[in-house]
């Protein structure tokens, strides 16, 4: 008997405890703060980077720990979703427990309030008036609405009560804000990737990690039209179309199908006069079998195309396979054979350069390069087109190059620039090849060729009188031989090679002198060869060399000295191109916003109602006492006590002016 009743008592108690716990303010505050802390982690630790970056950063042990904790994608980690889930539950419980009471109270005028309660209120005053009950009641019924209070009157045998209320909205504000939070969280969960994660856990999908064409991606990495919400991107070259998207997911990607196909007709970048980009635009054609004819629209940043619940955004741009014509200038081993090479951005070609097989991987072409300007009057300048490519040798090692089409000015002279780096993490280092007076690379090429030509060198060296006094013939021949070797060393290993040779063979105390001598000798020979080059061109040098040609010599010598560090046996000059761009589109489907947007509206409305329509109550209790009316006027406000006290005094003064004068 006893036991049974205990059990029946227990059941409601447990649920009450749960309800109490879930709806408690402590839990809510804890969740708010937990969410803050989790969010901080997500901003401090850069999210969704390649896993290898994390391994480098944290080492293998901590990498594993952090991965298990889901710290690389905090916002879709299960514990984060759990916090959000509890926030939704806690808020809902809170609304469930409080809203009915609040909504009731909104309509409630508290007409049954006791006299003592009124007298004890902080804002309370009483008068003895020589008036009739009706008169006072009438005044009260007008003064209260005049101050924005709606009033209800109760008449009993012993007393009359005029009860006023204002700011019922504040209670509504409470309901709105809390329901809004629930709506926004649920909407956000729908649009987030929680569902995708669940499907992955169930083994229904596996991200693809290989870089393969979309149509070769297996079914397990594909998402169909039934996928509720997603956000993916696709790069569509001008003149092409796509009916799939790519969604980056963990270490790989997923392919999302679309019920339509999107074609990019044209992509445009407009620039400001100063050179910075002004707008990115794509002319789109949307093909859908449900449409009589394709939908045509231009999108730009901030102006997406919305179609059938899908939003299509201009997100980025890239090269869509431009055709590039390259002129090949040999840099080592001499030879003046010049070939032209046609490549397409995104495609790899095999080429034979200086007797070795190379793979040329053209990765990007840019029509404009807006760089910081040297000119103080202008911030930026356009230095024209450039091509970016990798050259991979037979061992598989690659260097990356960036060559500008147009010569670039530096301190009055013009150069063809070629940047080189060994890894994307490095900055480009530039080779400055001086432009000749014809605007080309001809003179530099001839100079280089003659420097590799033994006959020319022999002739030049023989003519030189490097040392001040003449030498005996035998010594002279030896010395000439040494000079030729020096030149050859310079051509093969650059100025660095010459210097390390000095370091290796010469005692420390003599190094400086010898190095200076070597440099002088080299300068003299190079100068003499340069004179040959100019003579070849038919330049009259009987009156000496002008400043420009002298500067060219210095620049060319410096460039030749750096060739060994350049890392490619040839220089590819960008001579012609046919530009073709690709527009990076982002396509999103977010049905959750049907909850989120109304939620946002409710939140704003609710917050303003809560703060700026505070609930206030006033009561006038009238009682007849021997020819007089005894009046108790009292007021109560949930919040903003100081303001309300002020307001109460003002209304009190109104009553006093009307009733007591």
């Amino acid at each position, binding site marked *: 008997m006893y036991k049974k009743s205990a059990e029946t008592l227990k059941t409601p108690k447990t649920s009450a405890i749960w309800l109490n716990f879930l709806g408690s*303010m402590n839990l*809510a*505050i804890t969740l*708010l*703060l937990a*969410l*803050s802390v989790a*969010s901080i982690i*997500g*901003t*401090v630790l*850069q*999210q969704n980077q390649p896993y290898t970056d994390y391994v480098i950063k944290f080492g293998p042990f901590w990498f594993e720990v952090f991965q298990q904790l889901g710290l690389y994608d905090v*916002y879709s980690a299960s514990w984060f979703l759990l916090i959000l889930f509890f926030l939704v539950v806690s808020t809902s419980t809170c609304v469930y427990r409080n809203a009915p009471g609040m909504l009731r109270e909104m309509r409630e005028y508290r007409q049954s309030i006791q006299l003592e309660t009124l007298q004890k209120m902080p804002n309370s005053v009483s008068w003895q008036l020589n*008036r009739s009950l009706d*008169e006072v009641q009438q*005044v009260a019924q*007008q*003064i209260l609405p*005049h101050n924005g209070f709606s009033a209800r009157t109760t008449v009993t045998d012993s007393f009359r009560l005029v009860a006023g209320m204002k700011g019922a909205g504040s209670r509504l504000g409470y309901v709105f804000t809390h329901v809004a939070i629930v709506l926004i969280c649920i909407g956000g969960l729908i*649009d987030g990737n929680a569902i995708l994660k669940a499907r992955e856990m169930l083994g229904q999908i596996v991200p693809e990690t290989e870089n393969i064409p979309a149509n070769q991606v297996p079914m397990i990495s594909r998402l169909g039209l039934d996928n509720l919400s997603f*956000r993916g991107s696709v790069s569509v070259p001008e003149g092409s179309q796509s009916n799939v998207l790519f969604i980056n997911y963990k270490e790989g990607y997923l392919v999302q199908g679309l019920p339509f196909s999107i074609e990019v007709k044209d992509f445009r970048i407009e620039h*400001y*006069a100063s050179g*910075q*980009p*002004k*707008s*990115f635009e794509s002319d789109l054609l949307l093909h859908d079998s449900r449409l009589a004819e394709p939908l045509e629209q231009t999108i*730009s*940043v*901030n*102006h*997406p195309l919305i179609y059938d619940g899908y*939003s299509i*955004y201009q*997100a980025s741009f890239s090269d869509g396979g431009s055709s590039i014509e390259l002129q090949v200038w040999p840099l080592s081993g001499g030879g003046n054979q010049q070939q032209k090479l046609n490549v397409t951005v995104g495609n790899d070609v095999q080429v034979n350069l200086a007797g070795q097989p190379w793979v040329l991987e053209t990765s990007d072409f840019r029509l404009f390069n807006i760089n910081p300007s040297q000119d103080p009057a202008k*911030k930026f300048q356009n230095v024209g087109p450039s091509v970016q490519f990798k050259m991979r040798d037979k061992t598989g090692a690659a260097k990356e190059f960036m060559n500008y089409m147009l010569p670039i000015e530096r301190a009055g002279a013009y150069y063809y620039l070629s940047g080189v780096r060994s890894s994307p993490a490095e900055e480009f280092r530039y080779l400055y090849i001086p432009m000749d007076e014809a605007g080309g690379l001809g003179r530099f090429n001839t100079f280089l060729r003659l420097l590799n030509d033994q006959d020319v060198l022999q002739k030049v060296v023989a003519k030189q009188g490097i040392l001040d006094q003449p030498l005996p013939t035998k010594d002279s021949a030896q010395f000439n031989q040494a000079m030729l070797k020096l030149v050859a060393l310079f051509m093969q290993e650059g100025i660095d090679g010459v210097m390390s040779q000095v370091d290796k063979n010469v005692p420390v105390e003599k190094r400086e002198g010898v190095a200076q001598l070597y440099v002088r000798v080299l300068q003299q020979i190079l100068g003499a060869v340069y004179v040959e080059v100019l003579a070849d061109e038919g330049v009259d040098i009987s009156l000496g060399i002008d400043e420009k040609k002298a500067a060219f010599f210095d620049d060319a010598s410096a460039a030749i000295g750096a060739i060994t560090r350049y890392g490619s046996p040839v220089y590819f000059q960008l001579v012609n191109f046919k530009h073709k761009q690709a527009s990076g589109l*982002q*396509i*999103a489907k*977010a049905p959750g*916003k049907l909850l*989120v*947007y109304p939620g*946002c509206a409710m*939140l*704003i409305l609710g*917050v303003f109602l809560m*703060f*700026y329509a505070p609930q206030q109550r006033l009561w006038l209790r009238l009682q007849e006492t021997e020819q007089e009316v005894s009046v108790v006027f009292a007021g109560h406000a949930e919040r*903003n*006590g*100081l*303001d309300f006290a002020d307001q109460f005094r003002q209304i009190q003064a*109104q009553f006093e*002016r*009307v*009733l007591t*004068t």
Partner: protein
Amino acid sequence: MTSIQAALKSELERDAFWKGLSLFDWLWSIITVLSTAYAYTNYAPLMDVYEKVILVASSASLIVLGWHWKAIRQLSLLVFVLSLFGISRYVNGLSDAETDFFLRFLVSSQSAIMWMSALYVLATVTYFAAFIARSDFVAKVASAMTWSATVMGLVGLMVRWRESYLIGLDVGHIPVSNLYEVFILFSIITALLYLFYERRYQTRVLGGFVLLVISAAVAFLLWYTFDRQAADIQPLVPALKSYWMKIHVPANFIGYGAFALAAMVAVAYLIRFNAEKGDSNSLAMTLPELDVLDDLMYKSIALGFAFFTLATILGALWAAEAWGGYWSWDPKETWALIVWLNYAAWLHMRLTKGWRGKPMAAWAIVGLFVTLFAFLGVNMFLSGLHSYGEL
């Protein structure tokens, strides 16, 4: 009619809002309406429908604001006249800023902003002098300086707006697009919020405390101007070219300004709180009563929270249009959420748990640091989509 009914009738008519409006109030509204109409008819082709709505709505809010806070009328008219004067001095293009006397020393955006900076710093010093000397007169001078600084700051922004169009029709934009411009906006909004409460609570002792934050902002602004040449007007990146900027950014800065105000009031609160036990004649006891400070702190956090909520939601809607999703967990977004959660927790503690006093004041100060990180720290230490104001 009995006497009581007559008295009631006169009482009911006495405080009618419309009756309280003076001739100047009406004149003010007419000027505002006429200038809005002028702007509308002249520049309608340059505006999209949202921008037209924003123009009309801000004009209406300005009228109502002027009715409720009378000083706004004088402020606006002064800004109006000075800005028009500044704009009219530009005849041959931007180079006039170097040659024209008035532009060079008073109303070009650069000069006006320098005036603003100098006046805010002076006002801070003067407020503190008034506080220490317990002088009402000096405090009034400080108020006047704060008002003047605010006028010059607003003139600076207005003229800068015009200057951006002088660079090129396609470059022109509202000056709330980078860190330099929003720092000016922040100073002005914080000052205005303070001035509002100064009148409301009839106390000038808090001036120095609040203006301390503004002076710090000015110090940053000057460093940013001279060390980084941040004052140059830059054209907008495509993502910022939207009407959303006109509402998202100001709403955000009402939030930031209000949070800054709350934190400085909290500092005053703590000082007074510690002084309560000691000498009742000490300087700290000239600060407003703890109740008043507490109330002011709550009010400004509530105001800040309301506008910050609005701003964050506007930001989300803008993101949905520009970045393809209303929420991307971008560091700036995330920190906005953290700020929001922090103040949401603060408000819950106060409103439902009834917390008051020292811990809440300390929390409000911590809140300012959280806000500061969201405002500046994110740009300095974290990278993301919001990289418009990189340091």
